[in-house]
């Protein structure tokens, strides 16, 4: 089975909230010197792909759009067991929106291979837009299953276990298909074996520029959606402490109720 996994390198989502900074001009997170990691669910998607490869045989290709540094994320994917890796990198791409990125990914995938299955994380741990996977399916004209956790191949099709609010759905899909992956206990990303980490250093990473995908510098804008990001802000959390006075517990309780009503809490 030929599997492509789309993944994204992001700032460690585990950094303390106090360290989170936004750039008011680009409206993006400032990376600073924070650790960069593969977005959480993308790692689960890679794990699902690797498990399928172990069961079925085949090949796993990791694809990312990002800066040069994103090769580190690809090296990690190679160390975990991906067979090849592709970095799509060009400065304008960093500004592209979700639809633009999905269209770029679609072009790259069409150029590289004819996959049986394309996996994405169900959402990125930084922007959480949850839409690149479905856009990608749309662009490639493929069926799409979102929030899958496990994939069983069956008679040339796949059965995807898809989490829903109070349980799961089993969804059958024809191949090729796009599945976005959520986490469960069966797809915790593996710790790469040390030999594989060392071998990953020697595996080649294909670099694609916009020109390689036939995208003119000016035409990227046309590929994007019509949504404009107006503003981003870090929510301000305030905590105040107020003492309710009163001579007796009854009196304190009464005043507390009045105050809560005043604040429209009750």
């Amino acid at each position: 089975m030929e599997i492509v996994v789309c993944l994204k390198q992001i700032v460690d989502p585990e950094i303390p909230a106090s360290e989170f900074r936004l750039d008011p001009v680009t409206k993006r997170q400032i990376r600073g010197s924070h650790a960069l990691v593969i977005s959480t669910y993308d790692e689960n998607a890679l794990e699902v792909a690797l498990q399928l490869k172990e069961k079925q045989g085949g090949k796993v290709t990791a694809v990312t759009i990002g800066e040069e540094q994103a090769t580190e994320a690809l090296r990690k994917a190679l160390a975990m067991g991906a067979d090849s890796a592709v970095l799509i990198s060009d400065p304008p791409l960093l500004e592209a929106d979700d639809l633009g990125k999905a269209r770029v990914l679609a072009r790259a995938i069409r150029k590289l291979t004819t996959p049986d299955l394309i996996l994405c994380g169900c959402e990125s741990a930084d922007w959480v837009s949850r839409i690149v996977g479905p856009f990608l399916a749309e662009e490639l004209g493929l069926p799409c299953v979102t929030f899958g956790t496990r994939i069983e191949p069956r008679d040339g099709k796949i059965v995807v276990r898809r989490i829903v609010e109070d349980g799961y759905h089993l969804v059958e899909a024809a191949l090729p298909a796009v599945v976005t992956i959520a986490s469960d206990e069966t797809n915790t990303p593996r710790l790469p074996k040390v030999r594989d980490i060392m071998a990953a250093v020697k595996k080649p990473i294909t670099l694609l520029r916009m020109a390689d995908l036939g995208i003119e510098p000016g035409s990227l804008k046309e590929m994007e959606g019509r949504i404009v990001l107006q503003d981003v802000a870090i929510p301000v959390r305030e905590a105040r402490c107020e003492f309710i006075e009163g001579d007796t517990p009854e009196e304190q309780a009464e005043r507390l109720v009045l105050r809560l009503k005043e604040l429209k809490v009750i």
Partner: protein
Amino acid sequence: MGIDWPRGIAVLVLTGVATAIFLREMARIYRFLRLGQGSLRVDRVGKRLLDLIVYVLGHVKVLAWTYSGVLHLFIFWGFLVLLTTILQQYGEAFVPGWSLPWIGNSPVLAGLQDLFILLVLVGVGMALYLRAVVRPPRFRSSNPLDAYLILGLITGIMVGLAGSRATAIALSKEAPPGWLAGAFLSRALAVWFKGFSPSMLHLVHELFWWLHLLIILFFLTWIPEGKHLHLITIFPNIFLRKLTPRGALRPLDLEKAESLGVGKVEQFHWKDLLDTFACMECGRCTAVCPANATGKELDPRRLHTAIRHHLVEVGERVIAARESGQAIDRPSLIGDVFSEDFLWQCVTCAACIQECPAFNEHIDKIVDMRRYLVMEESRAPDTILEALRSLEARGHPFKGALASRTDWAKGMGIKEVARDGPAEWLFWVGCAAAFDERAQKVAQAMARILQIAGVDFAILGGEERCTGDPARRMGHEYLFQMLAQENIATLERYGITRILTICPHCYNTLKNEYPQFGGNFQVVHHSQFLAALLREGRLQLRQPLNLSLTFHDPCYLGRHNGEYEAPRQVLRALGGNRVVEMERCRERAFCCGAGGGLFWAEERVGKRINHERAEHALETGAEVVGTACPYCLVMFEDAVKAKEAPFRPRDIAELLADAL
């Protein structure tokens, strides 16, 4: 005096047969040892020879356990002194009435020999009492038949010897031997044979004489079969023991190693295999093991005996397979011989190593097998994997930490090397004190003391990474080496030479393990630094702390680095304090449960180690448990919460800061 050829030749033939059996078995064991990895390099020969005198002849470690130490001393020295009687016997075999030149007729030697016959029997009696009546749990996994057989053989040798000496005296009424005056025991026993006819006496003498010789020869053939092999292997084992710091694990060449860690018995270092043949199954290691004491599977004695039994079982086939190149079917080292749980229960506290009279190294073997699991198989308990992933991604093992590395220092006016340049001392904070809310208070207390004492210091801040101690002890040598190289590069870039740390784990790794990678720094633990500040009068105590105190020795400060005094000096200097020791303190201290990377493990089997240790502290009735390690501190805090114990754990720096 004629030569008794028939007897002489009979003795030689029997000796030859026994020696041949002995050598054949020893050669087999030698071939098994040769399966191991690594080469033989001997440095510091003088020190090693001295060790043989102190620890073999002097029994210094054996005597650390008084009862069994004394009984062993009797038997061991008896064996040495009575070697003279064996030489004597070989002379007699050819020449009746022969005695050793110069000393053979000495009453002093005869007296010594008789004394040791008695002491050996006393020793055997004490051993029997211990095994059969006292039955300490440490003997549980040892083979009792082997022990009783040996005690029986020793008794037989003594009876044969005493009997032949007594009958020799009785036989030589007219011309008593020159040594008679000293042989108080044999002389007394000779009285029993007074009424025997000369021919009967002669027969009885012959019986004793042969009994003595035959048991010795049988003993010789039996030595390689059981734990009594230690009387040979102990010499090379102590001579070749690890002389590098105890806290430093053996480095692994990741580029060259055929296997990353040990998944098969022949992948152990050959000295580790020798260790297993030097184990005399005394079980002292198991008796002091905190995991074993809290009902877990880990048994440091079985670690050795099981490797030995497994090696003996599969050794011949492994040798044959090596020649033929074919794979063999055999029980798996990890899985069949040791469960993964067994390997993940070790806190690397070195209590076992401290007690082992043979200087066996338990931790290296366990970490070698963890290395195999983690690096070759990517297998470890989930929470351990989580910590490893965090170390890899963000350079610290505390996933989900709410603080940044420098949050604790906000508003304290502390220098950061990158911003303010290096200072006289680098204050290495460590991940625990940076990210754990409770342990942050230790970093703050320490910084405040340094400021009060006017010490010029700076921190690395965001450039500090985990030293790699947990990664290394969890078996991820690759990750450890990455972190070590990164830290060494940072330290060298700033030209840092002097490091002060509040974490014994960082202390041990910076001091003992970084030199393996070319990082040589002067490293001081805060207990030592504070003791020095107090000694030099650089801190004025404002108020004595009127508290009753006990002190918990961190394993990586105490047993791994031999520092027991400095933290106690600090506590004593606090004035008015009453320091009560726990029963298990200093070299015998009981781990808090966090070492070996197990701070990040779920302790699911048995009683929690920190709860057990909190009970030890409770027994002292102290109001405060002093520690000198952020991990010990947090483990105690958890135990105090769970058990609602009426004492407070505090770091020595916190206590000292309160008194300023």
